[in-house]
């Protein structure tokens, strides 16, 4: 398993880094964020932009970069499927998965495990 994991990471990491500037959080939600990796947001926001986005759509923290969530919103509008997944409430990041393969975690179901006290949208 360890060897397999290392092999998969060896493929996944360079590929996703090159295409999406992926940060290998190990619990990929790119399909819900218009293919804009939320871990590039300096506040690591997984559920939408902060209130500090500049009028020109650039990031509060990095004035020369576009806000990750402005890109996510625009990207989500172009998605043929999963378009409204941007409205889903994303569970807290499991920081134990940092650096592991999101592909393996998807197959094993590990990336779906939420803390026991988390109910997501149970109230809606």
């Amino acid at each position, binding site marked *: 398993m360890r060897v397999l994991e290392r092999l998969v990471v060896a493929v996944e990491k360079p590929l996703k880094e090159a295409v999406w500037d992926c940060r290998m959080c190990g619990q990929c939600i790119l399909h819900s964020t218009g293919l804009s990796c939320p871990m590039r947001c300096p*506040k690591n*926001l997984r559920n*939408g932009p902060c209130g*500090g986005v500049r009028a020109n759509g650039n990031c*509060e923290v990095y004035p020369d970069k576009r806000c990750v969530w402005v890109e996510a919103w625009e990207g989500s509008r172009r998605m043929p499927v999963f378009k409204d997944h941007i409205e889903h*409430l994303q569970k807290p990041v499991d920081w134990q998965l940092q650096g592991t393969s999101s592909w393996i975690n998807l197959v094993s179901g590990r990336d779906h495990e939420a803390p026991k*006290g988390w109910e997501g949208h149970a109230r809606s």
Partner: protein
Amino acid sequence: MPGPSRLAELLRDGRFVVTAELTSTNSADPEATWRLAEVLRGSVDAVNCTDNTGAHVHMSSLAAAHLLVEKGIEPIMQLTVRDRNRLALQADLLGAAALGVRNIVLMSGDDVTVGDHPEARRIYDIDSMQLIEVAAGMRDRGTYLSGRTLDQAPSFFIGAVENPFAPPLEFRPLRLQKKVRAGADFIQTQLVFDVPLFARFMSMVGDLGLTDKVFIIPSIGIPRSARGARFMREKVPGLHVPDSLVDRLEKTPPARQSQEGIQIAVELLNAVRQIPGVAGVHLIGIKWEEGVVQVAEAAGLLPRPTLSPLATVGGSR
């Protein structure tokens, strides 16, 4: 246990509420906080205690909120996910509840780079949306995020923030909806200067059916001088201060600028008040508590309603 949120009762009663922001102090002497809070007493229904606002260190919002509880002034405790991880956040929420804090406002927080410790490590272990859900879980299910059971659940009136003026504008109402689904009971918005844009936001929020589910309280800023307005325009993240407002103050002689600022705030307040779905206003005087009182007075919002004493007894929300 201290009583439930009076703010919640007023809102559920259909009253137009007035809240205000308290300047956070840098003093180990509680009198500093009490002095400022006393200015607001009787002119507002609840008072926001900010959490290292603008990413500058001040006395903690938890301590300030408790100081207000001691004096019988209802606090709204702001809590950001910038400075604390999920353990610290839950610990402070529970501690706040035990100290009599009922109203909370949960937010991302301005980034450390705009503050006085730009070299600090930012936390953002969970985001503001997730914190709302965590607080609602503590209240409604009586558990921590881990699933571990609380001996006594807190009775929070949960607030969140939204900036209707920051891109992506079309996503903002949906993000608000997410917050409502996560458990937000009320929303305090970013400062409103652009009334038509805010009205458009409110109509989108109304179309989503959210004005029946959440109390929306826009913020009104009270500029004290042209310099203050310029500072807001240039330095405060996510704030869109129109040039016309700065011009208007600059054209006013310095001695009369503060009066003009009150006038501007009253005009904005009266304009947002007309917009369907607006449940109250949040006044931000920016180190100017007296300005808040003057605006409340000039806008005809005084005296504030009193609830029957019975309403403040009991531990339910």
